[in-house]
């Protein structure tokens, strides 16, 4: 008799779970189950990542020789689509949409998010937005860069309107996801779970959601005005009609700078979970880490002008924004130091997710510190629009966010699909991605500081060696991503059955069956102190971490 085994979500032996409770394509297309929506986001965003990655490889291929392999217009389209697809279809919706949807309600012991139909609407809007980007591809592409700066974007002939409307729709997808998560966290917490008894993943997703709700509408109106500007010629952003192009940049970056925190905060949220679980120790300075998420969300709104140091913004604003930009490094550094301290005297286990988490620490530090060079107005004038910037934000967006996404996927994949992946292949993927990534982007710091401008299809011959190293790295990175994705997907068919709690996680998603039953839990599990690893004991026979000594009074039935 398995008395240790929790039964909050056992399947009563009939093998029924959320994946097989109903079948047929319509049961997926019109599901309101947050877990299925999360799974579809997972597949969709991984697909978008592969597509965006393909464009990245084409960009790197073109840069193999100084004169380029493709013609220059094609190159412009490649880097624009790479940026737009990655930002709008993968990085922004990725972690909240895929992992947030799947995990957040489970962590709160809830049966679903607060508005399941709106959740489905978010997914549909994501898909429709993606179709708009497909429309861009087939109607002649777009070469403005993902930032759609005026006046170029309103005067060129590319199918920019499709891309802008696609991003507009994706913005609403993001808003509705954020709205759902905020209400879920406020109203669906189980009795007894206070704010400071929530897993840090919930804190991170919550802070993200606050930014999504506050910033994304401004992007919405900006893109709408831009589309109308292009189609009807308003004269608000278009200088040839008396408009102001710098005003567009203010509008754009009021959203798009906070948007980088929409991207990084969920990544940090995952790292907090991984650090705690794989160090078997409560996150050091839990309260500060929680507050630092909110602080990042708040400060993130005060720094947008550091994208505009060289684009006509006044010296007054440049000074203010440069100063404020430094403040954001404080909460970010708090997190990094606290993660390090979490490992200290912890019982660190190096499973695949932890490999990604450790790589994250290394690369986020590089990405964050190089951000300080760029936030300093004086050095930015030199480094602006060079490969230094490209490398900096790739260290954050790929080196940090994609690594956290992969770490999170490897962590929760067994819960999602009930299968363990091949541990060796998982680690191989992590190593290849790590190597490939650094070989790709480290040389770009060097090139950038020597003056190689970004977005150019051609370059001076003295940069060729570094460009070629970078291109080789990009292909290693591509292979690594393919290995990682193959490892995960093949496990669905080849993997052995996963136990309920393979890593010894303490949050509630590990207390239901693997995969979870359709309504998550039969009864809401009792709330335990957050990150208390003491009741979990590894069971050699089953590979499960069993929870011992459930409190009396928690007998269901």
């Amino acid at each position, binding site marked *: 008799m398995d008395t240790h085994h929790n039964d909050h979500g056992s399947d009563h032996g009939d093998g029924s779970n959320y994946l097989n409770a109903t079948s047929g394509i319509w049961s997926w297309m019109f599901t309101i189950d947050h877990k299925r929506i999360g799974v579809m986001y997972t597949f969709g965003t991984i697909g978008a990542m592969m597509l965006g990655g393909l464009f990245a490889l084409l960009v790197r291929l073109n840069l193999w020789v100084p004169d380029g392999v493709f013609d220059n217009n094609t190159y412009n389209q490649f880097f624009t689509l790479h940026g737009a697809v990655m930002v709008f279809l993968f990085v922004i919706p990725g972690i909240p949409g895929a992992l947030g949807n799947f995990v957040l309600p489970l962590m709160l012991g*809830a*049966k*679903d998010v*607060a*508005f*399941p139909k*709106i959740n489905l609407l978010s997914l549909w809007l994501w898909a429709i937005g993606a179709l708009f980007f497909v429309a861009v591809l087939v109607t002649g592409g777009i070469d403005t860069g993902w930032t759609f700066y005026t006046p170029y974007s309103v005067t060129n002939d590319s199918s920019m309107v499709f891309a802008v409307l696609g991003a507009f729709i994706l913005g609403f997808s993001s*808003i509705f996801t954020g*709205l*759902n998560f*905020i*209400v879920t966290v*406020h*109203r*669906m917490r189980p*009795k007894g779970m206070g704010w400071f008894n929530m897993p840090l993943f919930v804190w991170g997703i919550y802070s993200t959601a606050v930014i999504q*709700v*506050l*910033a*994304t*509408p*401004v992007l*919405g*109106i*900006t893109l709408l*005005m831009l589309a*109308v*500007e292009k189609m*009807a*010629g*308003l*004269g*608000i952003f278009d200088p040839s*009609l*008396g*408009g*102001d192009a710098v*005003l567009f940049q203010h*509008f754009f970056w009021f959203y798009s700078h906070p948007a980088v925190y929409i991207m990084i905060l969920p990544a940090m949220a995952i790292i907090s979970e991984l650090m705690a679980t794989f160090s078997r120790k409560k996150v050091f300075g839990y309260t500060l880490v929680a507050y630092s998420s909110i602080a990042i969300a708040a400060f993130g709104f005060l720094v947008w002008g550091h994208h505009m140091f060289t684009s006509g913004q006044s010296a007054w604003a440049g000074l203010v924004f440069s100063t404020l930009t430094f403040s954001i490094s404080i909460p970010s550094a708090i997190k990094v130091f606290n993660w390090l301290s979490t490992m200290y005297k912890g019982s660190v286990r190096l499973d695949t997710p932890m490999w990604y988490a450790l790589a994250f620490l290394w690369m986020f530090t590089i990405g964050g510190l190089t951000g300080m060079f760029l936030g300093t107005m004086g050095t930015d004038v030199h480094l602006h629009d060079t490969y230094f910037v490209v490398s900096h934000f790739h260290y954050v967006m790929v080196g940090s966010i994609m690594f956290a996404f992969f770490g999170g996927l490897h962590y929760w994949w067994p819960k999602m699909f009930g299968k363990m992946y091949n541990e060796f292949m998982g680690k191989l993927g992590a190593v290849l991605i790590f190597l490939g990534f650094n070989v790709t982007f480290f040389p770009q710091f060097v090139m950038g500081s020597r003056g190689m401008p970004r977005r150019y299809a051609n370059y001076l011959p003295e940069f060729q060696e570094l460009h070629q190293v970078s291109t080789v790295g990009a292909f290693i990175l591509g292979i690594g991503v393919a290995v990682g994705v193959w490892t995960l997907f093949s496990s669905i068919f080849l993997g052995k059955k996963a136990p309920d709690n393979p890593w010894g996680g303490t949050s509630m998603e590990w207390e239901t069956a693997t995969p979870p039953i359709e*309504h998550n839990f039969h*009864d*809401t599990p009792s709330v335990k102190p957050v990150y208390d690893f003491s009741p979990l004991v590894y069971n050699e026979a089953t590979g499960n971490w069993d929870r011992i000594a459930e409190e009396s009074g928690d007998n269901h039935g």
Partner: protein
Amino acid sequence: MSSSTHEDRPEWLAHFFETPEQQFEAGKLGMWLFLVTEVLFFSGLFCAYAYYRSHHPEMFVDAHFFLSTKMGAINTVVLILSSFTMATAVRNAQMENRTWLIRNLVITLVCAFGFLVIKAMEYTHKFHSGLFWGRSYAPNEVALEEYNTAIVAAGREPLANLSQLPDLHQFFSIYYCMTGLHGIHVVLGIVAIGLLLRRAIRGDFNRHYFTAVDGVGLYWHLVDLIWIFLFPLMYLIH
């Protein structure tokens, strides 16, 4: 915790909520968050307005001769009335007074349509005078006559042609963007109130379950609230 048995669970209570209160508070918080996004959505247009009003005040002064304070004021009153009936609709839903809930919603709908009709009359008049947005702006002699009548009444000399007034195309861009986006919100409100009316007639609401009435009400008040600012910003310029 004791989960409700199936029998005493009202059918309007979604399976993932414990109590009607939780469902109601979730719905209301969600609605307020949506209103937050609406405020920030409109803030972009208010920013554009403030930009051009502060740096090119003359274009607003010139343009106000083309806007009818009377029409704007009537529409303000119409929207305030609809807001009032919407507020009473929420009260009647809470009191389970179905007859008056339906009547309030009908009046609100009529006001919303009335608002759009008046707005359409204003737009038609402007199109007729060639007062379009941005690069389509092409005022004709109707516009010139209207302008001259207005400024002569204000004790100034009439103009020979309107090209002497710079940048008016930008004013009309802002005018159409702001009132147009507001108008779209009125249309969406009509759809929402219409659906609500159908449910009210069906008798869906009771004193434990009126979240939809409350939510649509909040939305409708925000639409009114934005107009409360648009009215002086557009129609009461000097």
